[in-house]
């Protein structure tokens, strides 16, 4: 094949290059993430006005919505890494796929938890089978399936390839699952849930939300790079450059 990929793409496939560049970016990304999350949380908790229908409990939105965004985006990142791994057999893509799963699953748990806690003061119950809660729960199952499948293989390359196929299948399925759950819910929608229909948000309420969403996306990227770097060390433990890092960091006695 005579397609010329930019040099960047080739380098991205090299674990060593990823480790080095990731290490250069990571402190800056971590700092910016902390700043955004801190500003967004303080703004949302203490400065945004309260919602006239839901009172202060709506402030949960500043965690719930970004977490739900990342949960879904995280699955697509995983599927994309899987596709790259299957097509170009790139080592780093395998590692990204492995490392994206726990982060995405954790964010799904956070979205579910915050949704449940939000539900208590709003609807008077911890769990409602509404379209969003239900599809989030299914997303968690998809993550858990990937996790279980990965861990049942002994060879990491095989585990990554198999999970790549499953992640792609899941990606095709997610919109279908979401649509069908949505349809199912409109069929059974109890009248009491009508409060959740978004009361039009005032600018002072959605501005902190934008900050939090940006912060969570950056957080995701930071956590992912951090994880991938450590995993790269494990995979490349027999290479010279990893040994040099170990020699520098640890104290090898003569």
């Amino acid at each position: 094949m005579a397609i010329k990929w930019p040099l960047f793409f080739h380098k991205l496939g090299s674990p060593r290059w990823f480790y080095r560049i990731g290490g250069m970016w990571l402190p800056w990304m971590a700092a910016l993430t902390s700043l955004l999350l801190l500003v967004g949380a303080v703004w949302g908790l203490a400065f945004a006005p309260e919602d006239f229908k839901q009172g202060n409990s709506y402030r949960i939105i500043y965690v719930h919505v970004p977490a739900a965004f990342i949960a879904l985006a995280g699955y697509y990142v995983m599927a994309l890494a899987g596709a790259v791994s299957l097509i170009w057999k790139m080592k780093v893509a395998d590692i990204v796929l492995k490392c994206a799963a726990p982060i995405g699953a954790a964010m799904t748990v956070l979205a579910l938890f915050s949704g449940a806690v939000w539900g208590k003061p709003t609807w008077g119950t911890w769990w409602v089978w509404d379209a969003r809660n239900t599809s989030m729960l299914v997303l968690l199952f998809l993550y858990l399936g990937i996790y279980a499948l990965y861990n049942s293989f002994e060879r990491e390359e095989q585990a990554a390839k198999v999970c790549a196929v499953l992640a792609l299948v899941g990606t095709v399925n997610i919109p279908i699952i979401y649509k069908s759950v949505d349809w199912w819910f409109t069929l059974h929608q109890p009248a009491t849930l009508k409060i959740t229909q978004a009361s039009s948000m005032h600018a002072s309420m959605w501005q902190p939300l934008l900050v939090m969403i940006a912060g969570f996306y950056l957080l995701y990227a930071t956590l992912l790079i951090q994880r991938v770097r450590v995993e790269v060390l494990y995979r490349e433990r027999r290479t010279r450059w990893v040994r040099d890092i170990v020699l520098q960091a640890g104290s090898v006695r003569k």
Partner: protein
Amino acid sequence: MLGPEQVPGSLEATAGTLRRDLLLAYRRRGDIINPLVFALIVVTLFPLGIGPGERLLAEIAPGLVWVVALLACLLSTDSIFRDDYLDGSLQQMLLSPQPGYFLVQAKVVVHWLVSGLPVTLMAPLLGLMLSMPGGGYLPLLVSLLFGTISLSMIGAIGAGLTVGLKRGGVLVALIVLPLYIPVMIFGSGAVVAGCEGRPYSGQLAVLVALTVLASVLAPLAITGALRINMDD
């Protein structure tokens, strides 16, 4: 070596796979009964667990029959490719000049013929045991007829992904059950609508669309999964 004119075409190879798998299934026809007995027992458990009240049972019957049928189909999913993988014939099949896509599709169709189809045919009995209203039987039959094809196709992806593992059982269920959700929603939705005397052709249309989609796309994923499990 066969000359190029002696290599069977895709159609012949697919028909051959169909014939072979059907013959194998016929020789082990006892296995076909097991999921049916399983479904019967599970349906018996429900009145025992929640009480024999006809109104309550009738209300949950459509969903219940669908879930039980789904679980019965899931039981045999794990072993779709297992035997052929272990005796090496699956590898030969994928190495053959005929496209693996159609051969895999044929295998899944046979699996449906010996699992999904019998369960579908028994489903009205299950509905009867749960005193399901009369309007639900036709949509139950039609929705299961198409729905179980999707279930076999999707289930085969799970079977293909785990074929190289010594123990697949629970793992396959874990992987496959979330993917079953849309099929079940529209399947039981049609039955519920039928029971309540509402039109259900919309749900069935979606179900057929899902089945076509699954039948076309799933073999791609299955062949991919099988090939990954082959290279050792």
